């Protein structure tokens, strides 16, 4: 069987793929320990826009940079319309911070192999009017990015946001024939408990976008990965492997967490977890040896 793949300036990604999330800066020192090993363990790495700004050394594998639009879920954030596009005002410090489609695209074009358009997540129970506005601006931002991109070798994924299967389907439809390199489904993390719903959304998107690459944000729990892939997902990013490791948990043996894990214990656990979850992805090839040495 010929596997689906995506060529990027830093290498080719064979689908399906589990994409580990990493960060830069001082907030999560464990990520700094894990990073140099990611080229051995993964096909690409996902960095959020916020942390990518703090990146000093680029990982040696395809780099995905999201838009940082998830900050719309933070308290005090506001979504504004400027020149027909969606802009996010984040109020965390004293000065409000503006996240605009042009700044995001500009940065991504400097650093990313795969870029995701600026989207605004729609949490469950958000009022309809606000939800509709968020979806409208999400779509406008995506189409704007497509029209304004300058780097043709950077892969551009359009982000889908919606509040139910139908609205998600509509959003996918808007992108289906718009020459994107791939589509990314967002807003699923707060709905992850309802697996059926998530899988139905995935199937709906898959139906609309035919065989374009489909990425899902943030659903990296090992038990769910196989199902998502069979439903038509090509790639998934997640930091769950490192969060579990930070708590001393190994997915090989989740019921007996390690107490007081040291930095290198955490490193080992994170790599083990990554090996474990990658084992759930069919067609794994470069991780077999590593898993073998741990099992």
């Amino acid at each position, binding site marked *: 069987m010929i596997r689906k793949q995506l060529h990027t300036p830093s290498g080719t990604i064979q689908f399906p793929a589990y994409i580990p999330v990493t960060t830069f800066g001082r907030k999560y020192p464990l990520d700094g320990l894990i990073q140099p090993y990611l080229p051995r363990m993964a096909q690409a790495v996902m960095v959020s826009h916020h942390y990518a700004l703090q990146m000093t050394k680029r990982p040696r594998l395809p780099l995905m940079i999201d838009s940082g639009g998830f900050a719309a879920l933070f308290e005090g954030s506001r979504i504004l319309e400027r020149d027909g596009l969606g802009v996010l005002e984040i109020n965390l410090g004293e000065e409000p911070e503006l996240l605009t489609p042009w700044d995001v695209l500009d940065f991504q074009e400097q650093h990313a192999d795969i870029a995701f358009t600026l989207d605004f997540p729609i949490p469950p129970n958000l009022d309809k009017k606000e939800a509709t506005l968020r979806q409208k601006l999400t779509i406008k931002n995506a189409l704007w990015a497509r029209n304004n991109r300058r780097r043709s070798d950077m892969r551009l994924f359009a982000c889908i946001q919606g509040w139910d299967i139908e609205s998600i389907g509509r959003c996918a439809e808007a992108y289906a024939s718009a020459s994107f390199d791939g589509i990314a489904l967002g807003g699923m993390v707060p709905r992850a408990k309802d697996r059926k719903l998530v899988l139905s959304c995935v199937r709906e998107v898959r139906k609309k976008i035919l065989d374009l690459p489909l990425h899902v944000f943030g659903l990296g729990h090992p038990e769910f990965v196989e199902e998502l892939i069979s439903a038509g997902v090509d790639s998934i990013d997640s930091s769950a492997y490192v969060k579990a490791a930070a708590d001393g948990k190994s997915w090989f043996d989740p019921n007996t967490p*390690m107490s007081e894990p040291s930095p290198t214990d955490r490193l*080992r656990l994170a790599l083990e977890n990554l090996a474990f979850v990658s084992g759930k992805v069919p067609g794994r090839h470069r991780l077999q040896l590593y898993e073998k040495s741990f099992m």
Partner: protein
Amino acid sequence: MPPTLNPAQQKVEDHFLLKSGFSVVLQMPTGSGKTWLAKKAIHEALVSGKRSIYLCPLKALAEELVKDWAQEFGKENVGIFTGDYGKQGGKYPVSFQKANILIMTPERLDGCTRSWRSHWSWIPEVDWLVVDEIHMLGDWHRGPRLEGTISRFKRLNPFTRILGLSATLGNRGELADWLEGVELDTDWRPVPLEWKVARYRKPEEKPSLLASEVARVNREGGQTIVFVQSRRRSEQIAKLLSEQGLNALHHHAGLTHSKRRVVESAFRNNQTSILVATSTLEMGLNLPARQVVLYDLQAFDGIGFSPLPVNTIWQRAGRAGRPGLDDSGEALLLAPVWERNIDHYSKGCFEPIRSGIARPDTLAEQILVEVHSGLARTENQLKRVFNTSLAALQKQTIDIQKNTLNMLNAGMLRKEEVGDRILLKATRLGHVVCRHQLQPSTVLRLRQFFESLKSFTDFDLLLIAASTPDCEPRLPVDYEELETLTEELVRQPSRLFEDFKHAGDLLGIGGKQLLSALKNALVLWRWMVTGDTDMVAEEEGCYPFEIHRLIESMDRLLLASASIQRAIDEPFPADQEDSSKPPKSEALLRIELLRQQILNGIEGPAAALTLVDGIGASWIRRLIAHGVCSLKSLAEADSQNLATLSKLSEKRATDWIKQASTLQQRVPATVQAGRIPTRPSDIDLEVDPYRLRRATELNVKWSQSNLWNVTGGSEPRQVTKAENGHFNCSCPDHAKGNTCKHQLAVRLRLNDKILHQSFRNMNANAEIPYLDLFGLWFERN
């Protein structure tokens, strides 16, 4: 790469060991192509963009490898990292960052794992860590640090595979289990090994027996390496063989590296046919010979002489037989006719490698290193680290709790509350241990000295540093030297010895160890006074190369001492930005000055000139010749006059003069102290106390009526009892008409009452309240 593989290499290839993804322990005889296999693994790593480390036990071997491999892999890829490079911020020929093949000594890699954050740019890219001569894990001194290094490296880079290589492992499987790897052995040798034993009746016959055996091989055009137990013996035997018309050279650790290289290349080019060597030729260098003679089957173990381990015999015998030149190699053992227990040597039943990491001293050091490097910060984390040690696998008791508590009580570790957790942190003292790669006991001893002795002489400081376990080499002291040492010591001023009991407590050692420390201190003192290593070596009966190593060792200990003194002077250091730093204490200045004196071989008021920035040993010699012999005279000098010295600008001279006038106020005055009280031996005994003391350390075995075998000395001896009741011994001491230690040992064994009484009297005299070198000699360590 050779076109065809030899059977040993083929076996490794057939088992796909290097591609298995696991660590590998390979046991292969010397010369069967271990290094080639390591090179192959390294080559594959290089092709896939990964790095490799090759750990070499000897600096000389590292030099040899780097030359070869730079040609093969490109010199930009191959870096050498040994104690000879990168000193005090100096550059390496190829940097850590750029080297894809890192040839290192274990000590250098230890340093990298201790400060792993500074090396994080390359550590994760390593695929293979080749540990040549992995049996070194069992070495008393280097083994525990090597084990700690491998353990840390594996944790920092879980992808690293270890390739352990050795010819002599008694527990290959156990080592592979420890490394979570696989193992393989092969006994194929490029040249078959033939074991022979030449018997002698008396040790005096050994030299002539050796000469005839060596001459036999020599006549047929073969070369010989003779292994002996001491440097002196290697020189004597080489001389003796040369006198008999044979072409022999000696080789031992007292020779400089370059001198050794000359001897090795003479042997390699067949300009000399016999090398008489100590253990220096046991490991590493590719230097085969048709015949290897094991002249001595016992070695000095620090207290007495004990039989050589099988591992050592095979490491040496493994050099026998030159591939392509000899049909077989000959390993020849010289043994007394009555010694029957030597068959086990040729059978090659190797001793297992035992971990030394659980010993209290080494465990304390490793605990500190783990905490200081941030890799373990709680007792639980430490337990997990050491539960995966080789010692734990070997069911040794590892008491983390007790050792951590000891380190807390000793002020090496402290507890710190971070959020809701209590974490262990290294104190400044603990930092000194890790930074300078010292044992905690060294640092504790130095701290105790500086805390309790507010005023000390240079000799006191040299002696305390020389008495620490990290001072090396330990120069041996001969009985015949004791008189001279006593005379030299009586001239030394000392505050330390004003209170003997306290001095004993601070020094913490006695017996021959203390004698050795005294000699080390005196040798360093002589070096400072004369600035001439060759002359000091000649006078003190040691080698210039040993003095150079001693200077290096002392440099490290005095640097550590300065850090310790700083921690005592300023228990709570001010912020670095705070410009109102307190002036250096007198003790600190004294330490810094002594370090400069040791580094530069200068003594007296001129030494203080080294405190001036830009003035080193060579400038001092030029300044002295110009009439500037102290800081005071420099401060009073005329800059124009000074600038007449070549390469000294007037601007620089003015700066020096300015510095000197500030510094001269700070130079500590000479400490006034009495001389060390010593006394010559005047114990009145029936027999020579030295021989009697040695007799108690020998083993006596009854052989047959009136015949005893005595072992534990440098040679096994036979003592007989004549009908008239007189004892006879085969040793040269007896031949000179002395009552030798061997017959005393037999008499003690036979419960000779007079002797036992003498022994008790001798011990009663041991509590003499002044420094009795002869008394020290008699002490059991």
